[in-house]
């Protein structure tokens, strides 16, 4: 069973392309472009990992993280940001996100992180 990845980013070109690249690598990846759709998707089929842009229309990071964790506590959240404000990253981690990366991302590093987070998830919830 392939790992389910949900990409939440208002930059649709980025999200769709990254999803396609993950699909090629046998991940069950899907991209959505706003928080509302993300929540619907998570409720319907909770992903293993959410790649979440810090700044999104309809929600700025923290509330989205809390909402995701409320719906699917097992889902790991990896923040992806073009800004990388220290305070925002810190707040995100304190609110339940498990990691962060700054755009543009290196695919190999991303895969490493995904695997690490997935393994952690499996270790806690086998």
């Amino acid at each position: 069973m392939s790992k389910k990845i949900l990409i939440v980013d208002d930059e649709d070109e980025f999200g769709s392309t990254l999803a396609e690249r993950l699909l090629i690598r046998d991940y069950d990846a899907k991209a959505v472009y706003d928080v509302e759709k993300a929540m619907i998707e998570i409720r319907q089929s909770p992903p293993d990992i959410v790649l979440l842009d810090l700044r999104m229309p309809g929600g700025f990071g923290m509330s989205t993280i809390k909402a995701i964790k409320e719906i699917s506590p097992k889902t790991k959240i990896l923040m992806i940001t073009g800004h990388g404000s220290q305070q925002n990253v810190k707040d995100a981690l304190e609110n339940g996100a498990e990691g962060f990366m700054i755009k543009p991302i290196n695919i190999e590093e991303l895969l490493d992180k995904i695997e690490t987070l997935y393994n952690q998830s499996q270790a806690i919830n086998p």
Partner: protein
Amino acid sequence: MKQVSITKLIESFRNNRFRVLKIKLFFIIGAIAGAPLLMVSVIAYLWLYGIAKDDFAIRFTEKIETTSLSMDYYISEKLSGLQFLASAYSYESLSEQKNLNNIFHLFKREFGELVDLGVIDDKGIQKVYAGPFQLQGKNYATHEWYEKTIARGRYVSDVFIGYRNIPHFAIAVKKYIPSKATFCILRATINMESLNNRIAAMGLKGSEDAFLISSQNILQTDTRFYGKSMERLVFDVIDDRRSINKSIEIREITNKKGFIGHKKLENVDWHLVIVTSDSPHDKIIDLLRHNYTMVYLTIAVMVMCIILNFNISRRMVNWIQTSEKNREDAIAQSEHANRLASIGRLAAGVAHEINNPLAIINEKAGLMKDILNISGATPHKDKFLGLIAAISDSVNRCRTITHRLLGFARQMDINMEMIDINSLIKDVLQFLEKEITYRDIKLELILNDEAPLIESDRGQLQQVFLNIINNAIDAVQDEGIISIKVDFSGGDSISISIQDNGHGIQEDKLKQIFEPFYTTKEKGKGTGLGLSITYGIVQKLGGDIRVESKVGIGTKFTVELPLKNKNSREDAKKYQF
């Protein structure tokens, strides 16, 4: 070069301004301190002058008194002697030539200095005469002395020439002749030279002059400075002699240094006048001349005042200069920090805006590469993969820049812990070990076992030293030398210097090297952010960073770090964006 010249010009102008200020302060403080001193000196002088003047007046009065008494005695002695002759001898006896001759010789022997003796009848004719001149039969009826003797009974005349053509004065007494119901006058004369001799006997000092004057201001004796006998004195001694009859008057000579004093004699209408060019001021000078302690003391106080004044003005100017420099430094530092902050905000914004499209390019290129890789053999596959790799390389270059921009802007929160600086530098060197070895760079590491632990942020300090040492490696040639030295002299800070023997930095560029985006490296090799990040971190950690460099010799960075960081977390937040 132009910038250096302007800097020098400003420095020169500033130094000149402080030099002028120092001189002004010297004179102002001198005036403030000197005014009371001068006032005290003037008061002391006036007080001393008053004392000296009183003393001088007493001594001068004594001299006039003594001399006038002597002159009075001299005149009255002669007058009394003549009076005695007139009383003791009858007219008949005095009218005998032989008797008069005898009396004259006796009289002269007794009183001396007499020139002659004569008896003048009531018609003014000299009936009998004893003396060296041929004056018998001479008529004196119209002579002033004759008239005044008749009127007063006895009289001492002013000095005059008379029949003998020699300056002399007459002493005459009127004698009644009851048997004839008439009178005669007994007259003796004395040469003016006798008066001169009496004056000379006073023992005058070189600065003094003494003489006799008549009531008509005619000199009766010769003077040293004011003319000869029988001449009119060139200045008025007294305004109204009669009103101050017998009194002594002393006054300063107008427009001239010195004093004049006079007293009227008892039996003659003469004034004894003494003039001196001495003054109380001379007394003070004499006093000082004979009291060197006071002079030395005064000079010592003045010299001390000048030295003290000089030191105070120098210290004040130095203090002002230091304050001004500190203020300027603080302003410059603040401006620099503000500039870095502004650029940081801009950098963060730019990085964010660039990162999103960059991420799209990166993913698109990555996807193309993925598709090509899974497509098997396709035409121009290698060409496309090469092109994609070039895109990815460029994206990575941009990524490095934007990530550093974010790093510069962010300068993460400090996380304090106790750090062994020796160990931290060794850790940093491990990152660079391969580069150093590969390029055969000689590393001189002088650590300090005495260095205490410092309270600082490990990660940020690693970034600081990584940046500086990395720059040193870039600056030196292969086989170059890099020296790293840890210094601790027991104060409240620790110093770490990193010196290389690379190409060095030009003096006019030294001030810019901490500015963001400023680099001396070749195009594409440096982002120009490393040292500005380093500068910001060191400042945030409460330290300081200095750079010295000479072209062709090398560059030395010195990082001063406090043993305890004083910058609070809140202060540090102002560097965040």
